[in-house]
């Protein structure tokens, strides 16, 4: 059940956008392994309007990474199993798309940045080899030499007031690969042509001395540098949606601040929408317009980030905000949440949080649990899944 949407939707830059870029409806994902079935996601619904940055925050095991991988269908189907739900990107349901059409979506449609770039970059190839691969693919799609999205419809410019017609992009016929594609050696021979473009990408992500960096191997670079290269590769095809799964969690604090600043500047310049996953409330506050809070596979609260942080309407959100390190006060012990995250194969009945919740009443353990409801007295679009959300404000 989708939360009711406001009538008019304004994008981040004040423009009107018709349809949400990404719609997740009732997504439920299970992992089936020997020990049992782990309900990684339970009935998650959210909307990502074009031009927005949506943050997903939660602790380890809450399902945010599963969500990030489920959307572009990167989950390995056994052991994962998508039990139900839809993922609509530009109107097309990605979950029912035939597998051969998926590469069309990835790249120009959806792109991903992961946590540990040393794992995402091939250690056997230099930076130049990997970047030039990204450049090559983009150039071939743009000129019709590779099958893919018909040129002219990629890289949507959000400063205009129209949106792409949903389903048009992916329903259009494929361009056949041009005759040049059949030449097996073209990839190697033309690699040097891409050097200038590769340098441009490195300058785009503010790498000084790109000439030197281009010839290095991933293990010779620092973590911050590797992550910038990953961002460059992810943005190389001007995706409409960038999914960033803890992109800065493995970096040092000052480097993390630099990379986040870079991402903020790039968002403004290229106008990609971002689904930003993090366990760090501060990072989400820095990056996101809207935030979704996840617990044990459920989305328990969603809304504009300032409003959710200042007026949380779910007890878990409140507890999470209170345990945030910057809130440490010197008097008395730190507020902490008792108990631990439930085992995903044995979720509590009703609301997943009720065993640890200070507001729990008998109705909270009745199935089905609370669903996301609009909260009165808060900003537009702020929803929370709690029967007693009014009382959350009164919690210490």
């Amino acid at each position, binding site marked *: 059940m989708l939360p009711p949407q406001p009538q008019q939707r304004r994008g981040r830059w004040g423009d009107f956008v018709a349809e949400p870029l990404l719609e997740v409806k009732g997504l439920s994902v299970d992992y089936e392994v020997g020990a049992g079935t782990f309900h990684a996601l339970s009935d998650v619904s959210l909307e990502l309007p074009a031009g927005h940055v949506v943050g997903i925050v939660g*602790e380890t095991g809450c399902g945010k990474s599963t969500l990030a991988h489920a959307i572009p269908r990167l989950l390995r189907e056994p052991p994962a199993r998508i039990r139900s739900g839809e993922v609509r990107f530009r109107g097309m349901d990605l979950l029912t798309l035939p597998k051969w059409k998926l590469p069309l979506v990835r790249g120009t449609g959806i792109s991903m940045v992961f946590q540990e770039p040393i794992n995402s970059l091939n250690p056997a190839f230099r930076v130049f080899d990997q970047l030039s691969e990204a450049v090559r693919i983009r150039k071939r799609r743009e000129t019709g030499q590779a099958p893919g999205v018909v040129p002219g419809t990629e890289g949507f410019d959000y400063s205009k007031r129209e949106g792409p017609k949903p389903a048009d992009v992916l329903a259009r016929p494929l361009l056949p690969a041009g005759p040049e594609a059949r030449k097996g050696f073209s990839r190697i021979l033309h690699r040097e042509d891409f050097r200038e473009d590769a340098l441009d*990408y490195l300058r785009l992500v503010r790498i000084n001395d790109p000439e030197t960096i281009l010839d290095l191997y991933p293990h010779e670079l620092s973590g911050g540098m590797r992550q910038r290269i990953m961002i460059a590769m992810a*943005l190389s095809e001007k995706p409409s949606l960038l999914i960033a799964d803890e992109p800065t969690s493995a970096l*040092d604090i*000052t480097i993390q601040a630099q990379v986040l600043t870079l991402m*903020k500047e790039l968002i403004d310049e290229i106008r990609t929408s971002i689904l930003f996953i993090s366990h760090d409330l501060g*990072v989400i506050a*820095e990056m996101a317009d809207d935030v979704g809070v996840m617990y044990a596979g459920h989305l328990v609260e969603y809304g504009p*980030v300032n409003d959710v942080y200042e007026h949380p309407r779910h007890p878990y959100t409140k507890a999470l905000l209170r*345990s945030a390190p910057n809130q440490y006060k010197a008097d008395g012990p730190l507020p902490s949440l008792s108990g631990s995250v439930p085992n995903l194969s044995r979720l509590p009945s009703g609301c997943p949080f009720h065993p640890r919740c200070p507001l729990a009443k008998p109705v909270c353990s009745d199935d089905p649990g609370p669903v996301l409801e609009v909260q009165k007295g808060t900003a537009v679009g702020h929803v929370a899944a709690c029967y007693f959300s009014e009382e959350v404000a009164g919690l210490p």
Partner: protein
Amino acid sequence: MTEALAEVRDVTKHFPLTQPLLAMVQRKSKDVIHAVERVSLAVGPGETVGLIGESGSGKTTLGWLFARLHEPTSGTVEFGGRDISHLEGSALRGIRRRVQIVFQDPVGSLDPRLRAWQIVGEPLQALERLRRSEVRDRVAALLPTVGLPAGSVDQYPHEFSGGGRQRLSLARALSVRPELVILDEPTSALDVAVQAQILNRLVALQRELGLSYLLITHNVAAVRYVADRVAVMYLGKIAELGGVRDVLERPLHPYTKALLAAVPAPEPGRRKTRYRVTGEIPSLVHPPPGCSFAARCPFVIDRCRTEEPLLRIPEGMERRWVACHRAEELVDVRPADLLAAEPASGSGSAARAM
């Protein structure tokens, strides 16, 4: 001034890198990693000293020097007034009863094939020569003090949660009743809610047992909560040292200001900020001459690149040490000044670049 419990004086630690054969033939001088350079720091009885820094700062190496897991290349390591820099064998084991360490990696520092009581009781077996039966009983009594059920003595490490494993490491360190516990990133691998639990536990145990802590971390808020004094390290040297309130609320060293500005805080308005400090952490093998922070410092002058600033008390202050030539001038610069608001509009050059 009370006698320091543990102290390092002017201590340096270099790690040699294996030389490629060609360089050996050419008789080039061996490369070393300058992990810690001429650091002096003391921890008093019952005190908590925080050690803040990023990767390459040398904080873990310094912690290991305090625990005598490394031998200093030069300088001295003292404990209880005694020089322990080059002790070996049973004399060193005597020290181990008084200094213990909780390691960074809660998964790797627990032998996956041993049960909880064997892991936690290992120092007891080695240092107090207790028999297996006694060890098991002692461990069963010890686990509740770190928040674990006594019945979990027979479980394997993988059966515990991340927080549980961290508590096991802590219990192991506390089993021999040490005087100084070195905590190497005790909260980094944990969720936010569990971090708070562990920090509470650490504070309570310190009060109960009269422990001293050396808290090594990059989590500034944890230091603010637990520590009495704090040292900020950069590239193997101490950049700033002082009381925790002073250093964190009125930082003097540009690196401290940069570090504090970088910490993401869940405050409104953060979205509009842009971090203004650029550059990467320089190499530990070939550290730059002069101040190691010169390449990234927003306030750098020529003197910084040639003359290395020494750790000193700035004029007009007391009980605070800074290693910066311009410390007095920059007193009024706050961390927030390093976060500029976003410019009016996107430059567009990036879009053209694509």
